[in-house]
């Protein structure tokens, strides 16, 4: 059940009405309804994985309590590592086992040794990377005594399984979401209205921007050996907007609908393509994941403390692991590694925290320079996205090589029966709208909001891509 599906359009109002009109008496009844709705929502993908979700929830709930209750450090450590081990073990089995087994077999064959690895015939449970990370952060925080364990199983389950964030984040923290789960929510008109705006804008990003870009990006990436240089450049740009529209659109819908239930989720995107360097980009892209890795991996490794070589090591570890989190493929590892390379010059020159605020322009030379930096950073991001989108590293390298060697920058007719340049106007319009609203979470609120809502609805209806239905990219992670 996707957020942009008709079934969800029925599901959401039913849950909303039940939540505020039937189950609104106590916090417990509200939470119980949301849990039931979340489990139903999750079972719509594959009910068998519901057991995995419940198991993962119970594991972290129980180990969290054991860690807190026991004063003996050895026993605390035991429960801590048991939780970490099982959580990562589940991820390893479902997400990474086949990759490691087949990569090892390839390595052996390179040395002339034949092997037929045992591969698991399993489907990746949707959202496993997200809810596993919820649980991990919770257990780690308890172990380091940053938070108290949650003793109410329903409340804890809701923190892990809350349907707006269950399958593609944002990756929530117990410190942020649990306190909201622990109190009875009362209806707040302004918050709900803001949520509706955010949901509509997320839908625009998904069906108008992401899905339309996808038809072009697919036509170009899937046939890159026949594409000219101009098409290949556009293919990378279209994919950049596809993945941005897709994931930030999903996040906006998640945040928006959560507000309808009176709860705020962590912001996941903050106009990343207006970043002036790659460090700023990573503070604005998939913020909940970046900050997760910062807090639970980068800082424990030493972060930006210690010698430069240690800092460089930490940067490479966090980016490569972040790439690997996205999927069991060398292309994601390469994507993470490339981003680490981009980050390196900033780190070595201590410039990685120089663009902390949203860009503001004036009519002067400094602003012109900032614009150039934005374009440069976007170009770097697009180059890295090629690795993210390509089927293999070889394909990505050949794609990039062809951009520089093919040399033809004319318009080209694609397999989606469109010319390669046709989307540029729509993307330009989207960028202008985002730019003008970069200090807000969404562009629909404020002055003339009804006109803007009408235009957004018109865009969804008239400009959306529906016949070639695409699911959200991040569901596969």
């Amino acid at each position, binding site marked *: 059940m996707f957020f942009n599906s008709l079934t969800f359009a029925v599901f959401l109002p039913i849950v909303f009405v039940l939540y*505020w009109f039937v189950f609104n008496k106590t916090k417990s009844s509200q939470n119980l309804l949301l849990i039931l709705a979340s489990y139903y929502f999750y079972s719509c993908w594959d009910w068998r994985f519901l057991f995995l979700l419940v198991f993962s929830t119970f594991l972290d709930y129980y180990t969290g309590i054991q860690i807190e209750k026991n004063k003996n450090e050895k026993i605390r450590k035991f429960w801590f590592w048991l939780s970490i081990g099982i959580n990562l073990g589940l991820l390893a089995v479902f997400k990474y086992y086949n990759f490691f087994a087949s990569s090892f077999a390839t390595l052996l064959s390179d040395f002339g040794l034949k092997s037929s690895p045992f591969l698991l015939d399993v489907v990746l449970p949707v959202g496993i990377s997200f809810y596993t990370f919820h649980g991990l952060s919770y257990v780690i925080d308890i172990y380091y005594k940053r938070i108290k364990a949650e003793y109410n199983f329903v409340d804890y389950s809701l923190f892990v399984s809350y349907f707006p964030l269950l399958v593609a984040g944002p990756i929530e923290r117990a410190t942020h979401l649990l306190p909201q789960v622990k109190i009875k929510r009362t*209806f707040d*008109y302004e918050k*709900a*209205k803001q949520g*509706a705006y955010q949901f*509509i804008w997320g839908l625009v990003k998904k069906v108008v921007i992401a899905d339309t870009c996808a038809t072009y990006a697919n036509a170009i990436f899937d046939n890159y050996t026949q594409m000219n240089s101009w098409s290949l450049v556009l293919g990378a740009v279209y994919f950049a907007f596809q993945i941005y529209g897709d994931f930030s659109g999903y996040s906006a819908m998640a945040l928006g609908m959560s507000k309808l239930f009176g709860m705020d989720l962590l912001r996941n995107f903050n106009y990343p393509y207006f970043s002036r360097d790659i460090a700023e980009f990573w503070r604005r892209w998939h913020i909940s994941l970046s900050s997760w890795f910062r807090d639970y991996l980068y800082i424990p490794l030493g972060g930006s403390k210690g010698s430069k070589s240690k800092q460089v090591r930490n940067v490479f570890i966090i980016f490569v692991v972040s790439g690997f989190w996205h999927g069991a493929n060398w292309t994601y590892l390469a994507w993470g590694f490339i981003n680490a390379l981009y980050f390196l010059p900033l780190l070595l020159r201590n410039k990685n925290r120089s663009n902390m605020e949203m860009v503001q322009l004036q009519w002067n030379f400094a602003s012109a320079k900032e614009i150039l930096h934005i374009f440069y950073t976007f170009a770097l991001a697009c180059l890295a996205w090629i690795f993210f989108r390509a089927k293999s590293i070889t394909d990505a390298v050949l794609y990039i090589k062809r951009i520089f060697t093919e040399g033809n920058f004319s318009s080209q007719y694609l397999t989606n*029966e*469109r010319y390669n340049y*046709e989307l540029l106007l729509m993307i330009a319009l989207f960028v202008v709208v985002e730019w003008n609203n970069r200090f807000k979470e969404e562009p629909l609120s404020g002055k003339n909001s*009804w006109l803007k*809502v*009408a235009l957004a*609805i*018109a865009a969804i*209806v*008239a*400009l*959306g*891509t*529906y*016949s*070639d239905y695409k699911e959200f990219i991040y569901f596969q992670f």
Partner: protein
Amino acid sequence: MKKFLLFILKISIVLVVVAVALDFGFTTIYKQSKSRGKIDYVFNSSARKYDVVILGSSRANNHFVSDLFEKQGLKTFNYGMSGGHLFEASLLLKLMIERKYEIKNVILEADLNLSNDQQSEGVSAKYLPYLHSSETVRKHFENEKDFNELYYIPFYRYLKFETRIGIRETFFTAIQKKSKLILNGGYYSLGETKGNMKNNITKLKPLPHNKYYEEIKALCKANNIHFIAIMTPMCENVTGMNYFDKVHKAYPEIHNYENVVVENKYFSSCGHMNDEGARLFTNNIIHDFFKSKK
């Protein structure tokens, strides 16, 4: 909460108003169109006179060379539609009759398309802008399973078939961008580039009473149009060629011209002849059905 429910109600009203307005706008544009494809070319026309009208799928569109008929003094238009089924061909003929076309002969390509009486959504979508403007179109679609959604939900048809009648096609229609589909008397020639030169049609079975084939036949009879049904050629490497015998058995009146052109050099893909093959084939048809009568 009341305030929010009112807010949601307002958004719902905006959604309906936007959908109705867009539906009206798109439909108005399609009702002016005469040059984007064969369906609007017929729908927005008045009486035309033809000696020969050709109907069918791409195997009609790419195989009957209108110019060769014209050279014989036969005013001809090839209304074959790539990807189309008999569902769409039948409706096109109904619209021609409704517009008082004077037609002497209808040549219907009837072979592989006899195996189903479903609509071809990609082609039939082009009729949908006229769903509310034509009783004929409405009646033709009314037994289709998604008719109610298409008919009653404003803009749903444009949204569902956005690749066919969505914003892009509407824009091209509005600026009256010419399409190649109605040039050369509707005939679309294929080049030498070889597509798949193998085909397996063993699973295809002609329906014993194809609803839309019978409908076309009946329409011709009722309007004194000479009806000629023809099976058209396929390449050498086809498995299941007895399909054409089955067609002949079920419909003895269909003329079997499948083996008139055989060699692969006359084909662009297994089911479609190139221009040279199409000319060879068309000359045979003209010779057998028209020259002999003159």
